[in-house]
């Protein structure tokens, strides 16, 4: 795979990974390029719970992206840390039913499961994503892919890091862990866009999921007979405890649903969050310098980036009974939008919360959500970003914005990230 990465055609990369184009295509707020923090601050101060979607509360024309299967009777939005945290930790009152909209494309998966079913399925995949597995991920994929991508970049002195590094590392790590080649990886990148694209019709999303299944199905079949040291083989080796207590191996359909989930959840998110981290550091050269000199701060820089500007700002839950949040009555069946960005900027928890500061003492944030559905891939995302930042600081000295390029902005309302990262070094 590393040979194929070294030979990747830059034009093809730009065609497949151009976020500027992706943002411009999206009708659900991808083209959103305003600073929305002022609106979030107002919403928290005047709420922290409001009736309406986050978009409606902010006075934006964009529709909310997650429609779910049936239109909820009412929608409420939450903007403070304590309430968002409490909702995540009360899955009996606030279910993940809205995420069942992913069942059509991925197949039945942990995002939309609840209670005991969720626990049983999560327990099967959790071990491969535990902290003690991160060396396995780094040794087999993250380190080599990072090195090979920087080999391409290092001699040039100037590059768009967003496109030629941040976009590629997370996707290649996931497809590398599936043991699939570059042609299939690039085709899967297109299919991911179709599976989750806001402007794609339902039939086309389902067709893209089916084609992804045609690529992944033979891999699963192959590993059943000839296991390798990869993620699919590990999952085939795990057993799930059924409701009646018996243990069995995973079915092809279960592995396929999980593979589609981590392809989509693990590629775009880490791409954009790594981009946000670099964007923040490039805008604060003194902090970039501090991190370069003291690598213990790499961890702080990543956590501060997650807190300060999380790439997926809003998650959704459904009220399973009549309840109340922040003094607002929430009828059963209501959709509740949880604004992680606003929660992570709550002055009740962080001093001067809108300032990016790598020297800030760590405190848990909500950027990987919380409660039983907390992000499965959080340790992997952190490991990828940590390896990437250290390698970039080692190999691209005097890293700074390209003097002739326009300063890029953060874009996107539901998937935030920099439009590009034009840098020079050396």
């Amino acid at each position: 795979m590393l040979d194929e990465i070294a030979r990747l055609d830059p034009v093809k990369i730009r065609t497949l990974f151009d976020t500027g184009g992706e943002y411009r295509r999206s009708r659900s707020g991808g083209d959103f390029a305003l600073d929305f923090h002022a609106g979030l601050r107002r919403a928290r101060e005047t709420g922290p719970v409001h009736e309406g979607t986050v978009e409606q509360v902010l006075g934006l024309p964009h529709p909310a992206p997650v429609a779910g299967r049936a239109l909820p009777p009412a929608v409420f939005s939450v903007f403070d840390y304590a309430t968002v945290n409490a909702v995540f930790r009360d899955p009996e009152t606030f279910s993940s039913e809205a995420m069942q909209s992913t069942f059509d494309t991925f197949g039945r998966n942990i995002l939309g499961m609840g209670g005991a079913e969720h626990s049983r399925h999560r327990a099967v995949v959790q071990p491969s994503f535990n902290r003690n597995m991160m060396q396995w991920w780094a040794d087999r994929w993250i380190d080599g892919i990072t090195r090979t991508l920087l080999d391409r970049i290092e001699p040039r002195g100037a590059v768009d890091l967003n496109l030629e590094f941040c976009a590629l590392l997370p996707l290649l790590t996931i497809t590398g862990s599936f043991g699939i080649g570059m042609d299939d990886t690039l085709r899967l990148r297109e299919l991911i866009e179709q599976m989750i694209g806001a402007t794609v019709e339902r039939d086309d999303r389902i067709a893209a999921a089916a084609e992804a299944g045609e690529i992944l199905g033979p891999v699963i079949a192959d590993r059943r007979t000839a296991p390798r040291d990869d993620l699919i083989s590990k999952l085939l080796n795990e057993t799930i405890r059924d409701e009646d207590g018996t243990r069995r191996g995973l079915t092809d359909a279960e592995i396929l649903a999980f593979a589609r989930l981590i392809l989509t959840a693990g590629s775009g998110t880490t791409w954009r969050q790594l981009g946000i981290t670099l964007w923040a550091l490039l805008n604060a050269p003194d902090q970039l310098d501090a991190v370069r000199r003291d690598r213990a701060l790499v961890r702080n820089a990543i956590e501060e980036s997650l807190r300060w500007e999380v790439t997926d700002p809003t998650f959704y839950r459904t009220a399973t009974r009549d309840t109340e949040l922040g003094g607002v009555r929430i009828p059963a069946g209501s959709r509740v939008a949880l604004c992680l960005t606003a929660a992570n900027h709550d002055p009740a928890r962080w001093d001067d919360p809108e300032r990016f500061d790598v020297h800030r003492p760590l405190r848990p944030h909500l950027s990987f959500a919380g409660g039983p559905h907390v992000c499965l891939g959080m340790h992997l995302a952190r490991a990828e970003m940590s390896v990437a930042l250290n390698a970039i600081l080692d190999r691209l000295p005097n890293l700074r914005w390209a003097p002739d390029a326009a300063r890029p902005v953060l874009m996107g309302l539901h998937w935030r990230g920099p439009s590009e990262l034009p840098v020079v070094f050396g």
Partner: protein
Amino acid sequence: MTDRTDAAPAAIDVTPETCAGTGMCGFYAPDTFGLDDDGKVTVLDERGDPPADVRNAAEACPTRSIRLRP
């Protein structure tokens, strides 16, 4: 901002039965919390990390399976 004490907790109670094995605690306090062979939380060393890190771990636990006694 909420004030936080620097004092170490008197004791750490964990509940492996409710633990989901996400390893969130080990991220904040790696020398205090680990996972056993069943992937459930276990205390490695009650004084393994600075008190603030242990408090972060307890606070971040997604299933409230870590309790600190003051």
